[in-house]
């Protein structure tokens, strides 16, 4: 049983040797650039904070309580994200790591919970917008003609708006709230993907292997799924990674303008807005949550930047040349 599995693996390895070599090269290229490694670490941290934020906060609270009760630390940090307290507008200290806001709530705790909202934004928006973009883009690019004309004109209508302005108008007319902000962002976001996919399909379509597939008698649907889709995936991945930062920042802008989740739900952009009244003395109120958003976006941008180099075949060939040149 095990032997046959091992044999199978050897066979697979032999058959896909070129592909494995290519992936190894990708990984090497990725590892070589410190910025992309830093980016991926930041992304992992933020995704973990986003998914498990409340539990992590509970964990830290428990740990600090334990340390305090054993006399290892002198003051017990307070992580009250929702309850009002008398510690109004306190600067960052051991008790309140990021300071407190005008209701005496802990900004560290609120920021941790705010990351979750930002992550939900970006994921939901992209999960809905990308499939719409892929389907419409594939149809428009592959069939061309009138279908393409209709889809492209509708896309153009949406792209005539600055993203933030249209998102603001939509979410205001739906009534402020997390759900309407998400709907607004989706409405603004899908046309970009249609345009990207359509452009890629137009160039992939010209390849000889597509014509060959058609000559053999393959149907349109299987040509699209088996030959065109795989070839538009890699630009899509790069674009998406960079785009997550864009969604997060636009979502933050919406919530800054009061159109995101409504209080008391903690949202980073909204916390920054609330802190504006207390500048410049209470700088931590606005600046620290804003900085968290910056780190979030920076992580995804660094990762996308690294992925772009790695997924670019020209870059890989140059690297291969360099590596093999060193060996010889």
């Amino acid at each position, binding site marked *: 049983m095990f032997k046959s599995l091992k044999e199978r693996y050897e066979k697979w390895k032999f058959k896909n040797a070129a592909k494995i070599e290519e992936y190894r090269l990708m990984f090497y290229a990725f590892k070589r650039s410190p*910025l992309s490694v830093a980016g991926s670490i930041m992304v992992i941290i933020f995704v973990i904070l986003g998914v498990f934020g409340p539990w992590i906060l509970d964990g830290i609270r428990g740990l600090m309580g334990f340390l305090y009760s054993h006399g290892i630390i002198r003051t017990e940090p307070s992580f009250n994200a929702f309850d009002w307290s008398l510690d109004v507008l306190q600067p960052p200290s051991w008790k309140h790591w990021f300071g407190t806001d005008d209701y005496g709530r802990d900004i560290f705790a609120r920021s941790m919970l705010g990351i979750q909202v930002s992550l939900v934004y970006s994921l939901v928006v992209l999960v809905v917008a990308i499939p719409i973009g892929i389907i419409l883009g594939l149809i428009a690019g592959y069939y061309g003609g009138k279908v393409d004309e209709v889809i492209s*004109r*509708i896309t*153009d*209508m*949406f792209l*005539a*708006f*600055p*993203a*933030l*302005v*249209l998102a*603001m*108008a*939509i979410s*205001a*007319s*739906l*009534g*402020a709230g997390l759900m309407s902000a998400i709907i607004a962002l989706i409405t603004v976001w899908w046309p970009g993907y249609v345009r990207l996919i359509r452009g890629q399909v137009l160039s992939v379509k010209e390849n000889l292997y597509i014509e060959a597939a058609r000559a053999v008698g393959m149907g349109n649907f299987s040509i699209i799924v088996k030959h065109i889709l795989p070839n538009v995936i890699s630009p899509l991945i790069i674009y998406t990674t960079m785009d997550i*930062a864009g969604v997060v*920042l636009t979502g*933050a*802008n919406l919530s*800054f*303008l*009061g*159109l995101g989740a409504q209080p008391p739900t903690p949202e980073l*952009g909204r916390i*920054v*807005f609330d802190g*504006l009244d207390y*500048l*410049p003395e209470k*700088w931590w109120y*606005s*600046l620290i949550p*804003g*900085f968290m*958003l*910056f780190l979030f*976006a*920076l992580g995804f*941008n*660094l990762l996308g*930047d690294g992925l772009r180099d790695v997924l670019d075949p020209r870059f890989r060939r140059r690297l291969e040349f360099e590596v093999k040149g060193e060996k010889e």
Partner: protein
Amino acid sequence: MAEYKYYLIRRLLTFIPTILGALFITFIVSHVVPMMPAKAGFARHLNLEALKRLEQLYHLDKPWWEQFAYYVRDLFTGHWGTSMMSGRPIFEDLRDYYPVTVQLAIAGEALILLIGVPLGIVAAMKQDKWIDYVIRVFSLVAYSMPYFLWAIGIQLLFYWKLGWFPGIGLGKPPAKIYTGMYLLDSLLCGDWSSFIDNLRHLFLPAFSLALPNAGVIARLMRGSLLDALSSEYIDYTRMKGLPERMVVLKHAMKNAIIPIITVGGLMFGGLLGGAFITETVFALAGAGRYTVMAVLRSMDIPVIMATTFLIVMTYLLVNLVVDLLYGAVDPRVRL
């Protein structure tokens, strides 16, 4: 030049359906989406007579294409409704506030090009040297920061801490107001003290609005210049013995600048949107801050729809100008 005339006519003709399309979207957003709950709300509290009269007043009893026609007519004749917040007609409010926003966006666009293009050229000429890495990291950091963080950071540092520039409100109004853009007006009537004051007041907001976009432009400029530098006609100019600076600035730039024109034009829309945030932080009395206040205080939908309409029209107009410029610079586009 005959072909440029055809290009011009063709481009102008495609402009009209784009406007109508954009207006159709704002129509759906302002009429279809929020009106239904309003209608339901009215029906419960008003008698049938009053409801009918309201429907007639707002043309709600007509089929949708007639409603759309009324909507477009009202937009272009300046009947934008009354602001719940200020109690004045929205058209008059925005006539005062919108020039401030446009002025800010134009200043931002100028700073984007002034910062982004030179940085991109330097990075491309010193490829893989330390200065190239510094510029690349700067551009990544610049466009990863949200507008409001740039604005708050810059305001804290240059206004509150160092006090180099004024960081709140508009400058001294000029003696005469023609357009509402103080900078332009003070030039027109020769009021120098007001001009300097407004320039100083405009600097920090425009700078914070420009920086994220300047990062994008620097990066794009670098890539596009490197692309141009690797082409054969550049090898030829080098073989001719031209100094490197001439090669880059005169020959490679001619091709490398084309994507910058396109993207720079597209950025104008982003700047108009970003002005909402910058004006809020720097307390500028512009259309952005006016709209934000209208939304925050009273969910004033007509105000936000009017601002959206103005911004879309401005943006489409800028794109039209960019396209025409593009056609003039690059003969290949005209075909």
